[in-house]
């Protein structure tokens, strides 16, 4: 789940998850100006962001204030947006704009009738500034509700250039090449991959990248909607491909047992920590943040990435996700909210956060020069270049009991698969059984 990922980024230890669920709010912010059209209004914005992300988003809010004169107030909802927003609506205290972290939550909100469709001028802006796939993920039943402001790129494999140099290998172009490189790295004495098996979502991301590239976006969409079963031959094939990695003891640091005892921050530490125990770690663009902030790596120099390579002749996958801004029907400042969304659709708003760092924008009009460093620029470029080939994280689209809960469903079954990858067909059957149960409810 996206929100868990955020937490994992913020806290080094997974245990801190248990403690870190407190929500925090910010007071109203007044900036200069005030002579503008919306002065005197206070826009309420809620989102999952806290810490550095909240601080950077505040800069975007401040830019809005400067432009329109409306004051803003940001409330961090913590881990559970839908519960917090739901209770606020019931309490007659609905925020005006919510930044929803998952497409599933957006659909849930829309179906409950909480959301107001975007006004025509914003819809037009979305069509000109974003690839169509983003309005697809922002729409429910043909109406566009969500504007994707912040995106994640989950098709990046991070590696230690030093390990690659030691092993004498170059950045791979295909999955097979990546495994061959992995074996060379392992021959040099360093296990190839750090796999965070303790956090099930990293395993679903592995699967999704392979599946998207191998089976193609069409099948991917159908599987995400559970229109084809998990026992489909394409799924078994993707699991077999993933099994090639999981079953090779030389490729995984600590073997399957070690991987199952490694959480996500731990897997980054294994590659970029003071005592490297592996050469590569696969996860999204947020790996860079941890490598930089916690282990002092210089991104682009002693921590680099290559795009998740193409599998079996397919195109290289781009799995993504993002936070979408939605307007609540029950908000008290509809006009300000709509102005805010129109502002978020502009490259100008995206540039504010892009300069601050830790941000990718799906807005194709945003000048890539706005990004602070080359590595982020490259990920952003890869995301924009992928255009309509971008697909959202499949497990985020599934019901939580299948794709987003520790210890059950897809997370648990892929962990079992990591422990014993010998029978992909049986794993596919178990996945289908769990999915059938979850999608029914």
């Amino acid at each position, binding site marked *: 789940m996206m929100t868990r990922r955020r937490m994992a980024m913020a806290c080094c230890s997974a*245990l801190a998850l*248990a*403690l870190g669920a407190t929500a925090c709010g910010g007071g109203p912010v007044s900036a200069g100006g005030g002579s503008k059209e919306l002065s005197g209004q206070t826009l309420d914005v809620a989102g999952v962001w806290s810490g550095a992300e909240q601080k950077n988003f505040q800069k975007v809010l401040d830019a809005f204030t400067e432009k329109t004169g409306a004051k803003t107030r940001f409330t961090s909802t913590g881990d559970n947006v839908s519960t917090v927003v739901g209770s606020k609506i019931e309490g007659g205290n609905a925020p005006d704009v919510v930044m929803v972290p998952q497409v599933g939550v957006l659909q849930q909100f829309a179906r409950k009738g909480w959301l107001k469709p975007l006004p025509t001028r914003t819809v037009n802006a979305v069509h000109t500034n974003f690839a169509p796939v983003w309005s697809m993920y922002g729409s429910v039943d043909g109406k566009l509700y969500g504007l994707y402001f912040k995106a994640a790129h989950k098709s990046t494999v991070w590696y230690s250039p030093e390990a690659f*140099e*030691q*092993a*004498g*290998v170059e950045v791979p172009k295909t999955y097979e090449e990546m495994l061959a490189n992995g074996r*060379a790295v*392992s*021959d*040099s*004495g*360093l296990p190839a991959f750090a796999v965070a*098996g*303790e*956090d*099930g979502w990293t395993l679903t991301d592995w699967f999704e990248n392979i599946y998207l590239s191998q089976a193609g976006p069409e099948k991917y969409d159908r599987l995400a909607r559970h229109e084809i079963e998990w026992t489909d031959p394409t799924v078994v094939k993707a699991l077999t491909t993933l099994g090639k990695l999981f079953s090779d003891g*030389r490729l995984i640091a600590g073997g399957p*047992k070690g991987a*199952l*005892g490694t*959480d996500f921050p731990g897997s980054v530490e294994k590659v970029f920590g003071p005592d490297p125990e592996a050469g590569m770690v696969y996860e999204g663009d947020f790996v860079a943040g941890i490598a930089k902030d916690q282990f002092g790596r210089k991104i682009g120099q002693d921590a680099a990435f290559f795009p998740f390579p193409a599998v079996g002749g397919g195109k290289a996958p781009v799995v993504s996700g993002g936070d979408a801004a939605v307007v609540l029907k029950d908000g008290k400042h509809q006009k300000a909210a709509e102005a805010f969304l129109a502002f978020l659709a502009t490259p100008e708003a995206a540039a504010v956060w892009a300069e601050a760092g830790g941000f990718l924008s799906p807005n194709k009009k945003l000048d890539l020069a706005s990004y602070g460093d080359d590595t982020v620029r490259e990920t952003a470029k890869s995301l924009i270049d992928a255009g309509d080939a971008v697909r959202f994280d499949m497990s985020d689209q599934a*019901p*939580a*009991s299948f794709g*987003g*809960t*520790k*210890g*059950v*469903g897809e*997370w*648990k079954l892929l*962990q*079992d698969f990591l*422990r014993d990858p010998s029978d992909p067909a049986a794993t596919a059957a178990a996945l289908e059984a769990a999915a059938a149960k979850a999608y029914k*409810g």
Partner: protein
Amino acid sequence: MTTLTTPVGAAGPRRRAQRRRRAIAAAFVLPALLLLGALVVYPVLFSVGRSFFDATGTRFAGGENYAEMFRDPATLTAIRNSAIWVVVAPTLLTGLGLVLAVLVEKVRWATAFKLLLFMPMAVSFLAAGIIFRLAYEEDPDKGVLNAAVVGVHDAFTGASSYPSARPRDDQGLREGPDGSYGTAGAVPPGRTVNLGLVGVPPGEVPARAEPASTAEAGPHELRGAVHLDFTPGGGGRPGAIDAAERGLPGLTVEAVRDGRTVATATTAADGSYRFADLPDGSYTIRLPAANFAPPYQGVSWLGPALVTPAIIGAYLWIWTGFAMVLIGAGLSSLPRDALEAARMDGASEWQVFRRITVPLLAPVLTVVFVTLVINVMKVFDLIYIIAPGPVQQDATVLATQMWLVSFGGGNDQGLGSALGVLLLLLVVPAMVFNVRRFRRSQS
């Protein structure tokens, strides 16, 4: 309650007084009844009702949830684990509490000692869970328990020199069933057999290692070099000794004929080994498994097999003090003369404990035991926090399962209610027992 004095001999006023007494009694009971009704009876009834509806709560499902519950292997695991908890934890706690209470009575700093043992009770389950999660961590660099286990183990058995070394595939070395590596074909004396290994981190090659030897063998000897068949930066030829490749010193090499080891050598700084004066015949060269024994990793406390005992351990840490203090209180009210009399009659301390103390304490022990049984049935937080994701299902008990199914992703409150009802049914016997005992001791 106040007793009302009624005038003797007047029937009407007496009845009136009685009615008044009842009214007052009802007034006093009412708040408690309301609270119990709102907080216990209503939720119980609601859960029972809810358990007959499906996940949405609108469609009547009959007994489907109950059938589903017993079809789901996770519930069966939960029932099994709950059974283990209920049997093991209260028994161990009562036993430990008894032993500690008796021993503490005999030490000088009894109060301080009791305080110390009681202290974990002041730690919240959440915090205790986090502490034990860290203590049980598998990596010896993080988990204190495994650090101790590995430390003790390594003090007795040394580590092997090249735990991660292995030959390349298809370069003439084959792995034996015991983890040793041997040449595939047999060779007569007079040959040079070089053995290439890979997978040794640069930092683990001893500093004394020299470039691998390429000396030729004489007529009656077998020799060769065990070398690191990997050129840093790539470009080496697999199977051949390249310029930058170093020998691996300190490895044991065996010459084997007809399955028997006939000679043993140790590699020198340049990786070379030599078996001189070998009789004619053909030999295979073998690198025994002891060279590659993986380092001891400690116990996997949080693996599927040990996770429940490990969490019970954490539970013991918290509750031992409670059991000890309760039993200690019972102990101090024991009639001393019985103990003294037994001692005068020549009973040993063990006999006094076994024949006098334990029987006299039996009522207290039962109370402690039953209270703990009820407590153990609802254990949740420790399991939720200590068990890592991959083994959560192996550690789950009814209470965690109920929560997971209803809120933790399952979002099926019908099935969750069914689990809740099952849990209630299982707790009821213990409750009834406790209430009965309570009544008996009051009368």
